[in-house]
């Protein structure tokens, strides 16, 4: 787009030392069938651009979705005015030098999901929803479809020019069972960096049936007595735990703000030696989110955060890399053109170990097998190191055997302790991403991926009822 180059030139002429421009056009399609009725068919299109300037080292940012030159020119002037207003009051926004990249990348897909006739998608959802409701005592069911097309162009005064296209699709199932006056819900979804072929090739009946069956198990289950347990975490829960309990604390901007318990701990042991943690921009098979470059034009490869239990680095943007004197890791991400990049995780996971699930179970006399279907998410206070998350329907482990189901389980612990309590890591790596949601931080929401293999944790606080 010539407009972006023109913005760069105009900003430099107005006295900016540095400028980058991000244009974005994003389409999101969401279809929801609720108890047999099409509840929502919506398409959102968001497009616009964001201009980030440095003047005497201070940063100003503006965004607009009115692309007429007169309006864009005003936006640039405003950005420069804001940067100047910070002089003597703000902190210089120095960017770690990187090589300017020119590249064009597209996430692989075969069928553009936006080319599929609306009627076909609605019919699929109506069918799946009917299936979910077919089981007795399933009181309510929601089936959803999501498709994303995200087109981004990044241009900087350093000569970078990157175009990135991302396509993602997925289906979501919520089944609510009612039994003996009690209700419980199970949520499951599958998303992939792929086109509509993913929707066509996946056995959605299995996912939907399983969600309804689990909801029926869950509603009849009791909650476990609260206390401290040995738990085996299923891969999807490992991803959630890791993302919340450790991932956020390893984000360099949180470290820089003095709000992470991991600050100053590079080179120290922060986890059991069985644990190696990485953040990777593009993972095989489209199972994670697609992030070959960040929103500052920095390539994102595979960053090793923890190696055999030892903290190696933090995730960084160019600014944070400079502040912390670390390499840029390609983690400067913005929700969209209207936000500035901050440090975010991409696909964050624990590397697989060598144990089978049976071997992990074997040594557990009494504990919980914790799964993620029905999990609602989690949250961490990175400063105090306390994390919490709600997990899905789980099962009691007795003498190495999986026994009765339990529900309403939430886990809580301390970042610095929990990873040290890991005493078994499975060999079955699973990575997931989600077209229906993402991770929120600083008022910005981005798609992420996370995962790991089965993991055993010796001690974790379980809140039952």
């Amino acid at each position, binding site marked *: 787009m010539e407009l972006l180059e023109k913005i760069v030139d105009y900003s430099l002429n107005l006295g900016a030392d540095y400028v980058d421009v991000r244009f974005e056009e994003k389409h*999101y399609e969401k279809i929801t069938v*609720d108890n047999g*009725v*099409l509840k*929502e*068919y*919506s*398409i*959102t*299109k*968001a497009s616009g651009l964001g201009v980030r300037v440095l003047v005497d080292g201070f*940063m*100003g*940012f503006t*965004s*607009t*979705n*009115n*692309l007429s030159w007169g309006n864009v020119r005003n*936006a640039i002037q*405003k950005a420069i005015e*804001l940067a100047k*207003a*910070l002089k003597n*009051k*703000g*902190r210089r926004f120095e960017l770690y030098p990187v090589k300017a990249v020119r590249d064009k990348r597209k996430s692989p897909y075969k069928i553009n999901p936006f080319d599929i006739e*609306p009627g076909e998608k*609605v019919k699929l959802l109506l069918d799946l929803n009917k299936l979910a409701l077919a089981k007795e005592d399933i*009181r*309510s069911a929601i089936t959803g479809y999501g498709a994303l097309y995200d087109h981004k162009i990044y241009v900087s005064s350093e000569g970078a020019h990157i175009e990135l296209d991302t396509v993602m699709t997925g289906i979501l199932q919520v089944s*609510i069972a009612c039994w003996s006056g*009690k*209700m*419980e*819900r199970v949520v499951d979804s599958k998303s992939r960096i792929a086109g509509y072929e993913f929707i066509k090739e996946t056995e959605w009946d299995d996912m939907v049936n399983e969600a309804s069956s689990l909801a029926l198990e869950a509603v009849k289950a009791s*909650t476990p007595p*609260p*206390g401290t347990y040995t738990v085996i975490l299923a891969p999807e829960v490992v991803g959630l735990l890791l993302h919340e309990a450790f991932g956020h604390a390893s984000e360099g*901007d949180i470290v*820089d*703000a*003095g*709000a992470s318990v991991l600050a100053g701990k590079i080179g120290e042991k922060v986890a059991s030696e069985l644990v190696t943690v990485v953040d990777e921009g593009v993972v095989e098979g489209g199972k994670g989110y697609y992030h070959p470059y960040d929103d500052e034009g920095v390539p994102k490869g595979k960053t090793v955060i923890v190696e055999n239990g030892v903290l190696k680095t933090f995730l960084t943007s160019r600014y944070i890399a400079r502040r912390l004197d670390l390499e840029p890791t390609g983690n400067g991400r913005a929700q969209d053109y209207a936000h*500035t990049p901050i440090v975010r995780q991409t696909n964050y996971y624990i590397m697989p170990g060598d144990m089978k699930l049976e071997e992990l179970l074997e040594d557990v006399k009494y504990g919980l097998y914790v799964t993620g279907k029905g999990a609602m998410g*989690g*949250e961490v*206070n990175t*400063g*105090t190191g306390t994390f*919490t998350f*709600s997990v899905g329907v789980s099962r009691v482990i007795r003498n190495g055997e999986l026994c009765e189901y339990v529900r*309403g389980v*939430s886990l*809580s612990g301390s970042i610095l302790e929990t990873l040290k309590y890991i005493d078994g890591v499975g060999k079955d790596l699973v990575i997931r991403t989600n077209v229906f949601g993402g991770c929120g931080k600083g008022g910005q929401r981005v798609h992420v991926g996370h995962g790991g293999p089965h993991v055993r944790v010796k001690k974790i*606080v*379980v*809140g*039952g*009822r």
Partner: protein
Amino acid sequence: MEIKPKIDIDVHDIIKKVQALGATEAEVYLCNIKRLSIEAIKDKIEEAAYTHTLGLGLRVAVGKRVACLGTSISRLKDIENVLKRAVKIARASPEDKSWVSLPRKLDKSDVYGVYDSKAEKISVNRVIGIVMDNIDKLKTFDKRVTPVGASLTISIIEHTIGNSHSETVRRIETSITYAVGAKAQEDGKEGVYHETVYSKRLDIREYEKATLKSAKRALENLNAKPIETCKTDVILEGKVLAAILSSALAPAITADNVQQKRSPLRGKLNSQILSEQLTLIDDPTRPWLYGTKEFDDEGVATRRNTIISNGVLRSYIYDTYTALKEGRDSTGNAYRPSLSSMPKPWIHNLLVQGKNEVKLEDMIRDTKHGLVISSTIGYWLSNPVSGYVNATVVHGYLVKEGEIVDYVKGVIISDNIYNMLKEKIEAIGKSEEREYYLNVYAPPIKIKEVTIAGK
């Protein structure tokens, strides 16, 4: 900063165009947002940002087939594209037999306290000054305390809604968010505390209060630790009760969850669901609160609704769709999570009132053994379908024999909300001591025998 949103788009012109394409009904929602944000990290400002977004939400019906589309408007042709697509999708959708019509009459209720002209006129330098003044307050509070950061975000939002049955309604509102974080360090120990102030008007004194509170509580958090797993009396500060109600109770009073059999309050109208000491009112007409407004997100005039009166469930909240399904009027509670979303019922300002109010300090004095919970994370993981509440305490006080004896963090409170707020209430705090979480305003509350999962 001068922010004067002005939309030069004729809503009824769009409606006519979409009707010409075959829509039997059409609704247009325009949202024009200008936002200034100044953010300090640690002790200095890193970011000054100004954003402007103009978006359009469109709901069209072809008979009983309905579709919603949303778009940001970069060029006028964006609108034309959306219209065609919306009609196409509506035609391809199956009939919704429950569909009756869009709202027949759009109107405004008589409300003030929605728009603060001072917030519109404030200069960038003044906003920078407010943020830096608060940073300085943290720096001078105590030598163990340092700022994590502070930010002030001012938004001016213009909403315009029209549909094929009625005239257009329009309002301009201000929305201001101040956030602050403090950290304390001593002998290798750390404590952190964050506060957020949301309001429709600039309130510099509130920001100072939040700043000082975050400093004090960060210091207290230096020595906070978990307690043993137990059942004990719990005093939830207003903010904590508000957050829990927002996640565990508010979804259960919405008519869509009730109609779709996802609410435990289905079939419970006029029955005692909470303690007779509790009254919950949704009041969008009260000035300057987070959700104060003259009309809802489909242009229906807002009104004060008593949801729970002395513990008895009196009303669910409705938008037009869920109301017409039951042959009644909307309660003016339509909410659009995004421009392209179908509206659904949601609370505006949920106010909690108690009978026989007791001061917080008296509640503490009357506690033999218990916890005062002042900040939690994960409360949003509470389950409105089952009523289970789970929240992890990140700041709290241990009370013994009426005195605060220690600081607590890292324990989980879990119980069922209806259980906690029906039989187990010991005392409810004063209305003056109400705190809020987004749009829920609640006093402190004392609940007996709550399960605490700890060490």
